Structures are given as structure tokens and as C-alpha cells.
């Protein structure tokens, strides 16, 4: 067992200093030490995308990333999305478009889509597909997720037009 390391990272805007074994995965740090259980583990080998989080704004698989790699970085998880008891527009769109069933893969989808729509607020169908292609959902067959993304784009655009910050 290697010597534990002390790392500092910001998660959803809060700075944490934690001591972890070098082999600890980022998702285990988030779910275990930090109690942020909204990020889920589906395959632990980087295929399904359920554990997707934002690392310095980029969508990454937190199951195949080590916690020590996140030292000094900014991490964003699904817990950051809803504010003051209100769902984020992307979450609201998922609900309205029936973009989820069991909901286990959903946090990963939300984070991926959130990255896409930050990077590309008005994406093409191909861009959307490219993003969804990195996530596996076993329930929905993706059609309603696609609809949810289109709805989210509209909601975010409306919010921007109204001068909102979402």
C-alpha cells in the first residue's frame, strides 16, 4: 500500500482538502469521502458513462480517474445543478420529455449534456448524438433523451433571452 497523499480540490465550488491512497478512484472519493452519491458507478471500466463528471469543465469518467489526478482542479457533479429547490433547465427538460426511467444513468447524461451546451449552446443533431454516444442508457432507447436535449436547448436560450443566469 502506497503512502496516502493529501490533495486539495474544489467540488461544486467548495474547497476540500482530503488525504487519500493514490489508488483511490475519483468516484470513490466523491461518493465515499465527500458523500456526493449523485454520481453513480455503472461499469467501473469507462464504458457506460454513468459516472461522468466535469473536471475543469470537461466531461470525464470519474471511475477510471484517480482522485490524486484531481489535485488542484475544479470538479462539478450533478449535485451542483438544482439551485434553491429549483431544477436546472436541463433537469426540467428531462422531466418534461420523459428523458429518464430508472434514473441511474441520468446524472452522467446530465453532466455530459451540460458540458455540450456550455461549449455549444446551439448544437447540431450530430453534435448531440456525439455527446449521447458516450453514455449508455438501458431504459429509454435514447429517443426521449434526444428530445430532452432539444428542449433543454430551448429552455436555456429562453433563460438567456430573459436575462437569466442559467
Amino acid at each position, binding site marked *: 500500500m502506497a503512502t496516502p497523499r493529501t490533495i486539495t480540490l474544489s467540488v461544486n465550488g467548495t474547497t476540500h482538502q482530503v488525504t487519500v491512497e493514490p489508488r483511490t478512484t475519483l468516484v470513490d472519493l466523491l461518493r465515499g469521502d465527500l458523500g456526493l*452519491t*449523485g454520481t453513480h458507478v455503472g461499469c467501473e471500466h469507462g464504458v457506460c458513462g454513468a459516472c461522468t463528471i466535469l473536471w475543469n469543465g470537461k466531461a470525464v469518467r470519474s471511475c477510471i480517474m484517480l482522485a490524486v489526478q484531481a489535485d488542484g482542479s475544479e470538479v462539478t457533479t450533478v449535485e451542483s445543478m438544482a439551485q434553491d429547490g429549483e*431544477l436546472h433547465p436541463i433537469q426540467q427538460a428531462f422531466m418534461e420529455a420523459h428523458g429518464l*426511467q430508472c434514473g441511474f444513468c441520468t446524472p452522467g447524461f446530465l453532466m455530459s449534456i451540460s458540458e455540450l451546451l456550455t461549449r455549444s449552446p446551439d448544437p447540431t443533431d450530430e453534435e448531440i448524438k456525439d455527446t449521447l454516444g458516450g453514455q449508455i442508457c438501458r*431504459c429509454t432507447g435514447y429517443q426521449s433523451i434526444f428530445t430532452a436535449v432539444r428542449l433543454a436547448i430551448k429552455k436555456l436560450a429562453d433563460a438567456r433571452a430573459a436575462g437569466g443566469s442559467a
Partner: protein
Amino acid sequence: MAIDDRPGITIPNRIEDLPTSQARFIGRTVDRVEDPMLLTGRAEFIDNLSFPGMLHCAILRSPHAHARVVSIDIAEASRAPGVLAVLTGEDCQRWSQPTPTVPEGWGTYCLATDKVRFVGEPVVAIAATNRYLAEDALELITVEYEELPPIVDATKAADANAPLVFEDKGSNVMLQRVFTWGDVDGAFAAAAHVFTETFRWHRLGANPIETFGVISQWDPIENALTCHGSFQSQYHMALARSIVLGLPSNKVRLMSQPHGGSFGGKGGARGTDITALLSRKIGGRPVKWIEDRMEYLAGGSSQSWDRHYEASLALDANGTVTGFKVKLLDDLGATAEGWGAVSAAKPLAAFTGCYAIPVAQYDLTIVATNKLPGSPYRGMGPPPHNFVLESLMDIAARELGIDPADLRRRNYIPKDQFPYTIASGNEYDSGDYDLALDTVLEMSDYQKLRAEQAAARAEGRLLGIGLVNTIEPGVFDWNAYAIVGQPGTGVPEGATVSIDVFGKINVKVGFSLEGQGQYTVLTQVLADYFGVELTDVRVVPCDTLSAPPHFGPGGSRLGVSITGAALGAADLLRQKLIKVAAGLLQTEPANVELMDGKLQITGVPGAEIPLAQVAGAMIARSDLLPPGVDPNAEATYAWTATGRTPADDQGRAKSYLTAANACHVVLVEVDRETGHVEILKYFIADDCGTRLNPANVEGMTQGGVAQGVGAALLEEYCYNEDGQLLTSTFMDYLLPSVYEVPMTEKKALVTPSPFTPLGAKGVGEGAMHTTPAAILCAINDAVAHLGVRATAVPASPHRLWTLLQDAKPGG
């Protein structure tokens, strides 16, 4: 109109008959009550739970398909950092029994004792202070094996010299019987045409994105067990644990947590037993085990339907199908623990599909091999069966020069023949198969698709059209599985509905979230019944000791069953409320009715009391209660389908209550150079009776298409000749992504069931019943002129490419 479920209970058969002038929620798409907690990551999936003192389990698994366990050395592992307990087969022999199975007697202990029977079988389990340390310690265990020759090929499992999975059985044949319904020999002898083909459906399975997980805590003083887990059916899991662990049934308390999908393949019996015994061994500390994906793929409830078919269809000179024979060799794997044998029985519920085929035969053999025990999966057996039946219909159509749509239409059960009893004994409640066919032909512009196909072929491209319609048996009953040894008739599902002093409604049930939206359906039904808002109803999941009788989701049943339970309980409560209201309104109960959330005197405007006030009086004003009314605004009702019959000696029973049907049309293109199949267009006309929540139905239909695409083209568990699993990660076992799943065009048809609450039919598995057959039929439609025929699922690129190498020159 009402279905007479029981004397004194009225359960409406139509939404219009609810005690509301206008239903606001049921039958409509509403925001799901489940969604906010799921979207924010707050749902209590099992791995989110943690208890004080909790330990973590890791499991050492067999690297061999078949081997004798000579010795196990756990000394070093026991001393490893963080390790508190090590469990072996010896502990299991001391403290437990082999797991009960169907067919009976093909189970083992939760850890290997004398030998291992499949790669991935649990051998030793460790409880440590965290999972990392538990897994470290596994590496310090030494197991000495004496390898035995494995039996991997099911077609050789019954050979006299085959290695035996269970020596004491003297054979690998778990079950062998021929079921004959009518004069099958006569029908085939008299047939103008007989078409016979062999088919292969390779192993695939559920793969919910959340694997199984459990936290077990043994109480050494009370000798009792409490488990939280991602149990699909907590009650049946609890009963079996009571038997296996030797505990009185009321000392076993299981609580199903919200879980990330199941599709029949959640499993969890071994993990629950292992963690329970580990907790027992360390004096009662809670022990958590979360199955990892590789454990799931190799050793979980991940694999289903490893089948070899030979089937024949008899037709007369007019293209009327006069007989259907199916010979199935079903490779169930090493044990019958996974309840997978039931999947060989379920096809009886819709053996002859949408067709009026008068006689049929099922020659069924189930064998054991040294592979992972088979489990249920969405559809529970009909998906492969429908692939066989529908492929034969297409073969017949092609050979006889009849359009596949026309041949099907000639053989449909006419809509005026319902309820209709099929040859294998089940009764279909209602349907209009011509309507489904006409609808999908119009949606797809079928003739135009044919023209498109012809034009493409002229360019040398291989386009094919699949047109398939199937029955989705809904509202399962145990009697459907009698032929493989499953006892019982009736599957009660209960609800306890109560109204508090403020008029808020609680409903207690025995199942948790799994994805199908049943909490929402339950909320919709009760909100309309009592005239309240959706937010006034709360669904409360209860554990096995506090819930009313329950099974939970499965067998396309819960939407109908829980609606029946809610409406039965609501009716009992309504009757109580009317008595109380009659007292308050100083009239006879016969003059009082519930309507739009008020108790009112019929025909006297303004003579009414709000629901909350009546419920409040029941609870807080005993002085106002009429004699014989208890101070409890609560009622419990357990619903089960009436009129179910026990199976006869040929397995025939009135089993599944409803028969939904769907007709799919798919256009595919087969790449001649690579064998790759692309789905170009997909159309669905789907009739599941009254839609309690249209978005729920549409979502499950699309999800079923996705799993059907996986089955037809991608998913396969491959074992080599040594019984080693070659597809042990998602890099090898391929799940469909957004790139493979077609965006489908769907149309809802509504032929209500005359027998069910609100006329709804069981739904959720239908597309999985249909899509694999539709895609395979489309592939064959694309390549038939080349003189080749795809008869194996999945039709992976390599398999199709190999087939196309035999294509007729110049085809």
C-alpha cells in the same frame, strides 16, 4: 361499467367510471413523481446507503468452468489489514441450505463446497473495513483445484459420456417433455406445405446500468436478518432466504431500495446469502456487497436464453397455417438457481402468436452445462420464440409467393373471436390485429418501402423489410410456469390507502422504484379517484414485514395489478367514508356518493362535505362515527386476476390475463462487404388497451426496441470450449448506444381489456418480443435472393459476413 372483482367491491373497467366528472390525470402524460429525486441524484440507490460499523464484502470466484475444490487456505487472508471475516463453503454447509430452484433440486450453496461448476462461481467471501482492503485480501487466498472436463456444448450435454454438472443427478437433463395440443401429427400429415428450419439464439441478457447490491445485517440475539438491497421482488427473495438460511419467515426483513433497472436480470440471491452469513460470522455487523460489472457479466443474473431450435409450420393450399411444432434445447447453465427455466415455460402464454393456429406441439429439453446459470430477462422467453415463429411465417410467405403482410392477415385471430383460447391453453382478452397491421402499413407507406427496396437492389444494395406482429402476454400468473415445476395460481399485489386528518393521501406498497413509473400511475389513479392533486398523494414503499401482500414489478403486470389494488382499496375506503358522511349529512348511506373529492347527497346540490372533513371526523371525532365504523380512514386491498385456472397435464392454463399486441415494420440495409446492418426506418403500431400514462408506455416501447436491437445485432455472451467467458467487459459485450438504436415512429391503438382495472393491458416487454424478430426478418428479406438465410441471433457483422460468403454468384 365495472369488473366484479369480489362481492361488494367495485373496480371500474373504464376511466369514465371513476368517481370524478372529468379525470384530470389518469390516461394522460404527467410529470413523473419519481423524477425530481432521480434527476438530482437523491434517490437512495443501495450503494448510497451506509450504516454504522458497516463492512464491505469482496468475493473470490472460480477461474475454472468445472473443477473439484481440493483445498482452500484462508490463513494469510484472515490476517490481512482490515479483514474481519472470511467465509467459505464450510460455513455455508454449517449454516445454510442449497438454494431452492425451478426445476427443483438443481441448486448449490452460495459458496462452492465440493466443486465449482462455472467460471465466476463464488468460492470465498471476505468482509473488511473497505472494499479495497477486501479485494487485497482475496489475493492472499490459495485454492487448490483439480480440473474436470467441462460440458460446454448443450447439444452434447445429454450424451452418455458427457461430464456431469451434478453427479448425483446421473444426467445433465433437467427437464424433458413433449407437450401436444391437438392432433398435430394429423395436421402435418394433411398439410399442403410444411416448412422446417433450425434456429439459434445465443446467450444475452439484462445488464441494467446498476448492478445488484445489498447490505445484510444478522441479529445474533433475535436470530433475525435485515437486508436492504436492489431487490426486484423483495417478498420472494425474503421467502427463499428464510428457507436457505433456516430462519422463521417473520424474522427475515427485506427492503427493496430504488434500483437502477432490472429487466428481470437483477438477481442477488447469492450476494444476499453471502453477506448475511458474513454478518452472522462477525457477530452482526452490517455487511455491504456491491456487485461490480465484471462480476455481473461473469457471475450475476446477466445471461439468458441460450437456445437451439428446430421448428416447423404446416399450411394448407390457401396459406392458412394449420399446425406449429417447436423443438427447443435450452441451455440453462450450471444450476437452475436463476429462475431462468421459467423462460422456457412462458411461451405457452402466447405460443401461436397473433394467429389462429389450431394445433401445436412443444418438445422441450432443458440441460445443465458448465456456464453461468440462466436468468430471466425482459420478455421471459417469448423473444426467441417469436423470432422462430415469425421467421417461419416469412419463410412460408417467401416460398409460397405471398406478401408477408398478406400471409399474416390470412391467419390472424379475427377481432370478433375474443376472448379467444389458443392451442397452448391461454386465453387472449381482446385485440384487433388487422387494425394494427393496417395502421403500420399506412404509417410506413409499405408499398413505397417495397419500391425503395427494389430500386436499391437494382443498384446492388441490400435493403430488406421486416414486418412482424406479436402478442405481449400481460399480468403474469404463476400457473403459466407449471410445466417447469413452479407452483401456485394467483399473484396478489396489495395497496394500503389512507387519508389523514388534512385530507392527504398515503399509499403503502411492497415495491420500490425500478424505472417503469408505477409510483406515478398509482398517484394518478388515486388523485383522480379522490379528487385531489398529484402532490396530495404520497407513495410509501414498505419492507416485507410491513407491506400488504406484494410481488412487485415483473411479467408486464404491475401497472394493471397496482391499479387494481389501489382501486379496490379506494372502494373500500369510499364505502367507509360514505357511512360517516351519511351520519354527518343526516341521511342514509344509500343516498351518498363520492364525486370530485366530496361526499354528497345524490341529486341534492350543495348537500356535500369535503373528503378531508369526513376523514378528519373519522380520526378525531369518534362521537360522530356511526356504529360499526372504525376510527381509521384506511383500507387495504390485494388484487389478483380472477378466473385463472391451474395447468392441466399438458400445461394448459388461463394464465396471463391480457394480450397486448404490436406490429412493427423495419427497413434495414445489409452491407454486403462487411455484414453490418443499419436500421434505416422503424414504425410501430402498438395496442395495449387503455394507456394509464402514455409517456410511460412510449418510453418502455422505445426502450424495448433498444434492447431488441442489442439482441438482434450486438449482444452475445461467448464461451470457449473450456467454458471460459470471452465477453467479460463492455468492450466485448456490446450494449446499444444512440448510434445503433433507431428513432421510431409510433402510433397508439386502444382496444381496452374487458377484464382489467380501467381496461389497461400489461405492457413493457412488447417491443422486446417483436424487435429482434422484425430485424431478423428484415435481414432475410434483404439477402434471401442470394440464397442464404440468417437463422442465428445476434446477426453480428461477422456472422452475416460469413453467411454472405455463401451467396449465389451474381445474386
